[in-house]
């Protein structure tokens, strides 16, 4: 009955099929094959990545929960903890941008409140192909609209993230969603089916034939027939999710819940067998009890459906009724669909027949594991964009303007280049995106989108949480290991600039086809880079997600790791943003003594971050901004642009001369921070003591943006003019 064809439709190899038969000691039924295929898909089993992920540092004094649960958890003091995680929804967003992105947000939010935490912030990292193409514009509008639709309605502020453009994401976008929630640290819930005899309860939306094989879909690239896979996409219902959140938290508070897990990828299958595996128990499901939206659904379909907004929970035997009352209060269905057993098996019954019977442990934890072959590229020469990665994905004419200026600085018009940089797709203002996101709901947003890191105060504690997402894909594509280190360093630097101490991180690893040895090599290098940087900067990894097979017609995307860093700000007075504050403030550049490009010295970086953190905590710093894409000139301009509380303000700055004008203005050396202060000399002393270079390079004030270079005004523009270009580009690119 199970033919080669059926196996290949399920993405199960011959060897894997043999293992299945070994485990079952018989041929699987079709339902069982479906169940194995989703649990052993790349998406759920991490079969290509697991051997590498083990190298990530996962322990630290603040870490309460590392990888392996729905989200990582850190202790933030005062008896409180935060749970956070990032997850990709790339493939669904490619197929249906709006719903794909929306359900991505829904999925990550469930991962957070499944653990008992109330989501208090979201971020997202987005990659698209250049907006010259109608298809890419359409995808981006859909993705941003979908994120806004879901997050706004659910009532969580979307406080930050990143958007960038490169050809390799055309038309296969990356959509990575991050969420963070807060709870009391002794009220953490886990996905464990404990207590033999306890009821297994299904809550939330009814099951339809949505997204069947979503997990396997996310584990295969797209060919010409991407359209044919379309009916798989699920629809998000943020209102239902909001009700689920409130009802679940209420039931948890009342002590009614023993174990709980969201039905995400692989739906009922993964939630039930993973809960059983973690507790060492069995789970018996009676599918006739499962609320169904469509007629005549088979066991296969019910087990594999990825209908959204559903949770599975295990309750105390005697308190079923109380659970129902809570859910009914919130207008939700709650139905007992099974019970916890002692035999360690996932047993699925329908119409009185056993349709599947598989040991939970082997299904959930003992999936295949591959050490796929790896192959480094023959050589990595230099690239013309090594200094100017922000130009990647831009029109060739724009790139040429910068490269010409780099070669012939004498004849270059830097006013023009400044305007071009500010209006280039990767640097221009992203208000078009984040004004569609409610970034203020819950009234905690001290620093929203647009600064280095977002800052959310924690009511009644005097503390705040800082968070950021970073993924410098072009750098990583050039040197995977160094790029990954720079990514971690930049994320931590962003936290530091906002006044925080970086504490822990989550990561989303978006890669091409792992069956290609070069991709697997990139993956391994990136993991090593993250591991090294996270060790040095003492920011353990508490979880993450891997998305492989990001390719279209055989072209792989850049290796695109995205790091989500979380930090603690112990005192609200330390909260710092990137925008300049007052006329007359001194602008100070702090950097390491090296002027590397495309690589980083982590010990220097650490010294830099410590020094700046300390300076902020001593009250010496009025604003702080990390220098990244677009170099010093772009960073300075960003500090001048209007914020929600003051109009644009000018600055006059002497740009230090190291190389040539274009590189000194726009070159992207890592490990540099711009500060403003009224006490530059004290900062200078501290920097000196830390072995860092610090220069007072200018003053805030006026209405002009003036950059002097080797005695000449290389840039001299009205700040309003520059800001207008920066602010208007995005809407223009879309119209």
């Amino acid at each position: 009955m199970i033919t080669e064809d059926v196996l290949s439709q399920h993405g199960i190899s011959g060897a894997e099929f043999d293992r299945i038969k070994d485990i079952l000691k018989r041929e699987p039924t079709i339902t069982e094959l479906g169940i194995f295929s989703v649990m052993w898909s790349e998406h759920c089993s991490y079969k290509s990545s697991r051997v590498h992920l083990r190298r990530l540092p996962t322990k630290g004094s603040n870490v309460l929960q590392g990888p392996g649960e729905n989200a990582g958890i850190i202790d933030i003091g005062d008896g409180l903890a935060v749970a956070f995680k990032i997850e990709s929804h790339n493939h669904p967003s490619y197929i249906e941008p709006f719903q794909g992105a929306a359900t991505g947000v829904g999925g990550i939010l469930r991962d957070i409140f499944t653990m008992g935490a109330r989501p208090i912030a979201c971020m997202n990292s987005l990659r698209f192909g250049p907006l010259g193409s109608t298809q890419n514009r359409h995808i981006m509008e859909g993705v941003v609209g979908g994120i806004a639709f879901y997050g706004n309605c659910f009532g969580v502020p979307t406080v930050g993230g990143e958007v960038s453009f490169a050809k390799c994401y055309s038309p296969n976008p990356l959509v990575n969603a991050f969420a963070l929630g807060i709870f009391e640290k002794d009220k953490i819930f886990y996905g464990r089916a404990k207590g033999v005899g306890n009821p297994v309860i299904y809550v939330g939306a009814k099951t339809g034939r949505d997204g069947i094989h979503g997990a396997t879909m996310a584990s295969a690239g797209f060919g010409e027939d991407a359209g044919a896979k379309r009916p798989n996409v699920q629809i998000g219902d943020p209102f239902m999710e909001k009700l689920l959140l409130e009802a679940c938290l209420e039931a948890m508070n009342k002590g009614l819940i023993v174990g709980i897990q969201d039905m995400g990828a692989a739906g009922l299958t993964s939630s039930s067998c993973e809960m059983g595996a973690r507790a060492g128990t069995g789970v018996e499901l009676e599918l006739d009890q499962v609320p169904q939206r469509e007629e005549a659904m088979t066991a296969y379909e019910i087990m594999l459906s990825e209908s959204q907004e559903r949770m599975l929970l295990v309750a105390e035997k005697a308190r079923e009724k109380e659970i129902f009352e809570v859910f009914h209060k919130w207008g939700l269905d709650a139905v007992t669909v099974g019970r916890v057993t002692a035999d360690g098996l996932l047993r699925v019954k329908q119409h009185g027949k056993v349709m599947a019977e598989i040991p939970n442990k082997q299904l959930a934890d003992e999936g295949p594991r591959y050490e796929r072959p790896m192959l480094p590229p023959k050589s990595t020469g230099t690239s013309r964009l090594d200094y100017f990665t922000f130009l990647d994905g831009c029109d060739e004419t724009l790139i040429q303007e910068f490269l010409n200026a780099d070669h012939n600085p004498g004849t270059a018009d830097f006013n023009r280049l400044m305007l071009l940089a500010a209006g280039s797709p990767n640097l221009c203002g992203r208000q078009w995106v984040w004004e569609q996101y409610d970034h203020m709901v819950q009234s905690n947003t001290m620093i929203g989108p647009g600064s280095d890191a977002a800052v959310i105060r924690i009511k009644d504690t005097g503390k705040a949480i800082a968070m950021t997402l970073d993924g410098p894909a072009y750098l990583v594509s050039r040197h995977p290991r160094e790029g990954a280190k720079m990514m971690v360093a930049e994320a931590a630097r962003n936290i530091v600039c906002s006044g925080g101490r970086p504490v822990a991180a989550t990561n989303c690893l978006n890669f091409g086809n792992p069956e290609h040895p070069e991709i697997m090599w990139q993956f391994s290098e990136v993991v090593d880079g993250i591991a090294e940087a996270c060790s040095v900067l003492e920011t353990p990894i508490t979880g993450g997600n891997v998305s492989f097979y990001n390719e279209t017609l055989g072209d792989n995307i850049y290796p695109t790791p995205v790091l989500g860093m979380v930090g603690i700000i112990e005192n609200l007075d330390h909260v710092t943003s990137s925008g300049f504050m007052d006329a007359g403030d001194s602008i100070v550049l702090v950097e390491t003594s090296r002027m590397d490009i495309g690589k980083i010295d982590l010990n220097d970086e650490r010294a830099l971050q410590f020094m700046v953190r300390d300076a902020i905590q001593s009250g010496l710093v009025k604003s702080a901004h990390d220098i990244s894409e677009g170099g010093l000139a772009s960073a300075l301009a960003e500090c001048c642009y209007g914020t929600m509380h003051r109009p644009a303000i000018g600055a006059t700055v002497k740009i230090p001369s190291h190389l040539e004008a274009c590189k000194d203005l726009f070159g992207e050396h890592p490990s540099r921070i711009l500060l403003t202060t009224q006490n530059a000399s004290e900062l200078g002393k501290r920097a000196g003591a830390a072995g860092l270079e610090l220069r007072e390079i200018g003053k805030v004030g006026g209405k002009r943006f003036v950059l002097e270079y080797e005695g000449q005004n290389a840039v001299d523009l009205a700040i309003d003019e520059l800001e207008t270009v920066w602010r208007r580009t995005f809407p223009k690119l879309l119209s």
Partner: protein
Amino acid sequence: MKATIIVTLKPTVLDPQGITIQRCVQSMGLPEVTDIRQGKYFDVQLADNTPPERRKELIQRLAKDVLTNPVIEEFRIDWDQKS
């Protein structure tokens, strides 16, 4: 010259709006309403001098390429012979 295009979710696609409305209506004391599904309705006006063969093509294209998201929706055209 007018035509009406009706865009509805494919029958198997979840309609959260419809479900929510239906639930509300039920609890309002209209228990007889067993299902509501929501769709979109477009009244399209064409220039009078549009040649008949072009009309058909035009409305088809509008319905298919602009007004419908083929991933989750389907459409239906009502030709209005008046005016």
